């Protein structure tokens, strides 16, 4: 069902407001700190919602629904074991060092804590990665808008790139953050009625669970495999993810999620822009509250889609097939939008999709222009220029960052394999990162040489592990096993989790070993950067319930409860 007038009007209102916010903020950008860090002036709740929204790009929304269809409720491990605990850890333990050190970016923290080469390695890999990820998601968006709106690929890519470019050029990070708040609410209000209608169609949660037992038994699993989180995790063969509890807790939870949420500048930048230390610490904690409810918004639609396909509800929704005959899980949300929403709501649903694409893209672009300007341009190309010069460089970087993303989208459109290979490479680079930050913040003895060697060896270990293992049933190549075959995992996900566990462990061990044989930095230089040398923060200016530790404990308790309810 293609949109008609009322739907276009709703989408138009959204475009007017995102551009209007950028326009309203154009006079507030006077220094590079205004442009890259919003002049550190953002209230905690705004930063918190932006923190969430920047991550809520297309891949997240489309991908999580697809996983909900493929693996069922267990997909919520990405939230209830992964993201939420990591966000609490960031707010309670790590934010004091990111914010307190006055670092302007995550790579800059590495420079302050370790040395120039560790920062360089992180900055260059991060900058490359963000540009390509943004391109890959633009490509996905182009395909989807083509299907839903009937726009051609060029129009979709160039139009959304232009809108994002304009509002970031006008208002910098503040404009991106404010728009992320608009986008957050649009995504929630656009998708919530979809879940309601889908559930109603299938006879509520009961009807959904009943149909999911057919989905599970039809594929040879225990009846509750699609509607439970932990009960089938004892053995990798008894759940559709093909992973066991240790791989989930350690690989997904501890290594991958902490690695992403605690070290990725795309999200951390939002907290760094907060107006005070306590606001910065509350940013990820505030974000964690809606985050723990997101499985109901993005995973449940996928479960509804697969349940309905297996055994249709009154309205007869079924997932479409791909050309090769398999179900096209990625279309769960888009197809449900056009199945359940009448004109009017359809416009709102499509606006929610557009908002998610744009928030993801703007997140990447603002993180890229900051790392490029502060950690690459100012560090290696032009050191002592005026602040005004760096502000202009940030604007230029915004233009060529978006330009490169558009180029990457076209490359992805023509050579899909190149993008798969790049994503694999990025996974290798990212896997060991959390070990470096953990040691950097909590072990004063860790040295720059140690961190650098650890990162390189961790990345090498990830590549090596991938080269020696393969998910069962795959052919050697991009899926792994390109060196030799030592071990076969039950699924690709299990292989990913274990790649991360190996990379983390090797990075940890190598960093410790090399640190012990290299000269430590003077303790005076590490005040404010390492836990044991930094005076404890006194949070006496806040009510007891607003203190990070209390908020964090509350969020964790609620998440534990969700795990138990959906056990």
């Amino acid at each position, binding site marked *: 069902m293609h949109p008609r007038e009322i739907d276009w009007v709703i989408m138009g209102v959204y475009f007017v407001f995102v551009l209007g916010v950028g326009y309203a903020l154009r006079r507030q950008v006077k220094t590079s700190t205004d442009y890259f860090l919003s002049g550190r002036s953002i209230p905690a709740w705004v930063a918190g919602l932006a923190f969430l929204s920047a991550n809520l790009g297309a891949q997240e929304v489309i991908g999580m629904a697809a996983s909900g269809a493929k693996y069922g409720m267990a997909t919520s491990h990405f939230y209830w074991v992964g993201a939420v605990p990591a966000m609490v850890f960031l707010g309670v333990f790590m934010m004091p060092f990111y914010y307190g050190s006055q670092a302007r970016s995550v790579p800059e923290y590495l420079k302050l804590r370790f040395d120039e080469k560790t920062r360089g390695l992180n900055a260059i890999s991060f900058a490359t990665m963000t540009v390509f990820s943004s391109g890959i998601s633009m490509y996905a968006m182009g395909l989807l808008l083509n299907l839903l709106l009937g726009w051609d690929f060029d129009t979709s890519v160039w139009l959304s790139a232009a809108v994002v470019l304009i509002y970031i050029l006008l208002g910098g990070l503040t404009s991106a953050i*404010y728009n992320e708040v608009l986008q957050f609410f649009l995504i929630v209000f656009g998708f919530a009625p979809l879940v309601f209608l889908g559930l109603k*169609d299938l006879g509520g949660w009961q009807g959904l669970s009943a149909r999911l037992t057919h989905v599970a038994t039809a594929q040879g699993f225990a009846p509750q495999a699609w509607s439970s989180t932990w009960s089938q995790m004892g053995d990798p063969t008894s759940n559709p993810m093909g992973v066991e509890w240790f791989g989930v807790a350690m690989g997904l939870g501890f290594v991958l999620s902490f690695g992403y949420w605690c070290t990725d500048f795309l999200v951390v930048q939002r907290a760094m822009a907060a107006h005070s230390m306590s606001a910065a610490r509350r940013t990820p904690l505030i974000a964690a509250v809606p985050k723990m409810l997101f499985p109901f918004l993005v995973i449940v639609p996928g479960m509804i889609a697969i349940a309905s396909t297996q055994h249709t509800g009154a309205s007869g929704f079924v997932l479409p097939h791909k050309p090769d005959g398999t179900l096209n899980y990625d279309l769960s949300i888009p197809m449900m939008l056009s199945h359940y929403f*009448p004109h*009017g709501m359809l416009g709102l649903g499509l606006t929610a999709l557009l908002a998610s694409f744009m928030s993801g893209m703007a997140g990447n672009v603002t993180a890229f222009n900051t790392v490029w300007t502060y950690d690459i341009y100012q560090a290696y190309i032009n050191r002592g220029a005026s602040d005004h010069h760096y502000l202009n460089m940030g604007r230029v970087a915004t233009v060529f960052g978006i330009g490169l993303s558009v180029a990457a989208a076209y490359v992805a459109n023509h050579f899909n394999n190149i993008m798969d290979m790049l994503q694999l490479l990025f996974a290798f680079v990212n896997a060991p990162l959390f070990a470096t930050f953990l040691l950097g913040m909590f072990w004063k003895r860790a040295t720059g040489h140690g961190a650098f060697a650890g990162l390189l060896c961790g990345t090498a270990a990830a590549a090596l592990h991938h080269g020696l293992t393969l998910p069962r049933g795959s052919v050697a190549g991009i899926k792994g096993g390109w060196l030799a075959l030592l071990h076969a995992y039950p699924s690709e996900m299990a292989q990913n989790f274990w790649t991360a566990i190996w990379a983390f462990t090797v990075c940890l061990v190598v960093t410790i070993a090399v640190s012990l044989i290299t000269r430590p930095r003077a303790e005076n230089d590490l005040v404010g950067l390492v836990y044991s040398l930094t005076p404890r923060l006194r949070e006496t200016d806040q009510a007891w319930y607003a203190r990070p530790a209390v908020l964090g404990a509350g969020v964790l308790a609620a998440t534990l409860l969700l795990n138990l309810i959906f056990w």
Partner: protein
Amino acid sequence: MGLDIRIPLGVMFTILGLLLTGFGFFSDPVIYQRSLGIDINLWWGLALLLFGALMLCLGWRAAGGRTH
């Protein structure tokens, strides 16, 4: 900080709410077969209106507090 995001948020959702409620009120009921017979435009439009109004109230109250 200059701009209170609750104001644009409130205005945008009020406009979207008015559009959906209005369309829900005047549109042909046949189109609501796909939403299981519920006039989702009308009801959800009202929800958006309520949210928009709430944001505007919060934003205006904060602005009032600053000028005093």
